[in-house]
């Protein structure tokens, strides 16, 4: 929240000592138990994502062939071996190490995608909203309509497969492609939101006042409209994170996401599925982590929405 306060401070709408907009919102957020629970879940996942792979006994790609051979080339169930607390898959890859590495991958995807979304959605929405009614606005909005009509997952899959064998698709084990593919279909909501915000903010007196004293369009957009319209964008971005995690998991599950030896929770589920009868741990453990990530970000996003815009409480 500190950075947000700076933004408000910079445009000269100094927060009152005891109850600035952001301080109020933070106060409301702190009283929301589910949102705090979500925040703790996110901190926990971020912690295991950042530090987990450093402290696990095995690298994510290591195959403990000796242990699997001793087990008759079968996956080792969890809590039976001291060396592999959560067991291994049929190749002897340590589940704990893989789950932690996947946490890193999935969270990175979810967050980087939001930067792509901001990078595309905010400028398009801002331009369309500022020049509303013009040809640019019409063109951009028709374009967003087309993107909106695309069944998202189809486009993501198509895009991922189309560029999979190019250098761009191979970069970072296919991660770069996943960022771009999910980002390219996810910006529409943010663009529409920003446009809507701009349409209403443009008519306010403070913008008129700024225009009257000769502030340039660029400065009005950057310093007056964006900071004032930012709260729904923050909420949309927070709720976009679970959507991106879900999309990434689905991609990885059908095998067009991150490429081996790297894995993500979705690809672990796909890899474990043939063993679901005898070794369900291979599938339910990544499943639990996906659910934890989705619940945490959804709770925080809902809490932020209630906190930033109390009028909307309970809607959507």
């Amino acid at each position, binding site marked *: 929240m500190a950075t947000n306060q700076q933004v408000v401070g910079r445009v000269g709408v100094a927060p009152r000592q005891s109850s600035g907009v952001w301080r109020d919102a933070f106060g409301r957020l702190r009283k929301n138990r589910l949102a705090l629970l979500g925040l703790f879940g996110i901190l926990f996942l971020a912690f295991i994502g950042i530090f987990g792979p450093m402290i696990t006994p095995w690298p994510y790609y290591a195959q403990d062939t000796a242990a699997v051979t001793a087990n008759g080339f079968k996956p080792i169930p969890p809590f039976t071996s001291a060396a592999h607390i959560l067991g291994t898959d049929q190749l002897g890859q340590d589940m704990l190490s893989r789950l932690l590495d996947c946490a890193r991958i999935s969270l990175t995807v979810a967050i980087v995608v939001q930067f792509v979304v901001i990078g595309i959605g905010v400028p398009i929405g801002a331009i369309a909203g500022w020049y509303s009614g013009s040809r640019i606005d019409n063109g951009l909005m028709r374009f967003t309509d087309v993107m909106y009509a695309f069944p998202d997952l189809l486009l993501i899959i198509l895009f991922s497969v189309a560029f999979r064998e*190019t250098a761009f698709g191979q970069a970072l084990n296919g991660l770069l492609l996943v960022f771009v593919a999910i980002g390219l279909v996810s910006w529409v909501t943010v663009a529409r939101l920003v446009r809507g915000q701009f349409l209403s903010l443009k008519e306010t007196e403070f913008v008129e006042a700024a225009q009257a004293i000769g502030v340039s369009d660029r400065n009005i957009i950057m310093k007056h409209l964006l900071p004032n319209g930012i709260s729904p964008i923050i909420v949309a971005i927070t709720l976009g994170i679970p959507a991106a995690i879900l999309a990434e998991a689905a991609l990885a599950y059908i095998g067009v996401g991150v490429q081996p030896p790297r894995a993500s929770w979705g690809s672990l589920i796909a890899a474990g599925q043939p063993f679901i009868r005898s070794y369900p741990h291979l599938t339910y453990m990544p499943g639990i982590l996906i659910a934890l990530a989705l619940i945490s970000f959804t709770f925080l996003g809902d809490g932020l929405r209630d906190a930033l815009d109390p009028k909307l409480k309970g809607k959507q």
Partner: protein
Amino acid sequence: MISYLARRILWIIPVLFAVSIITFFLMHAVPGGPWDAEKRLPANVQARLNAQYGLDKPLYEQYIQWAGGFVTGDLGPSYRSRDRRVNDIIGDGIAVTFQLGIMAFALSVVVGIPLGIFAALGHNRWPDYLSTSISIIGIATPSFVLAILLIVVFSIGLGWFPTGGWKGPQYWVLPTVALAGFPIAVIARYTRASMLEVTRKDYIRTAQSKGIGGRAVVSRHMIRNALIPVVTILGPIFAFLVTGSFIIETFFGIPGVGRYYVQGIAGRDYGVIMAMTVIFALAVAVLNVVVDVLYAYIDPRIRYS
């Protein structure tokens, strides 16, 4: 209203045109072609196949050819299953995909709306907490994770349902539930919020002060009004079910069109990819129009012009 409807329907055409063009050129931007199978064909054979299917022509000509076929209902040849037309492939699977989608849609409406009403009527008491917990779990569980849970409990644990296949009603249960989990949660949340909103309205207080009993107010005044906004999310829910069915079909080995799409992309089967993307975009676009019209029909306050 008529002119609004006409504009909305006409707008579908340029959208589909744009969707098909983007898909077409994205697809052809891919290095390689449909003949790069496991066994690589000799160059002269590839050239002959290309000539036979018109793949040696410039892209825009190929697009025009495809679009002309699409308009007349011919979706072109399948490049992987060379003895079959795309029409046959889609004809085989689409009934199954639609059956799954409609069953999941019906289940989510039939379960989601009562769940939301139940939560709102017991606001801040156990029905609310129970229903909210169910919707949180539904929102936070991807369909294939839910599918795993269902299989572990109901197929492996209890042995009630098969783990995959599509041979009769007992095979339908788990895929439908797995696909409907998320929409149930979304509909329940919307219904609950909308009911709570309506409860505070003046006309409810008027009705109650006139002495109309609890149940009559709920059924005649609250639910009717509360369901209006819920209709608006049915369009996006349908779109979700359409794309979501891919994953569930792959998971349960269901012979719908979803599987062919994934295989089609991997095998550069241009005809299958184009046909399915455009058909799904068309289905979603038409349903969005239907939902908007329905919205105006059930809520006389809404007038389109």
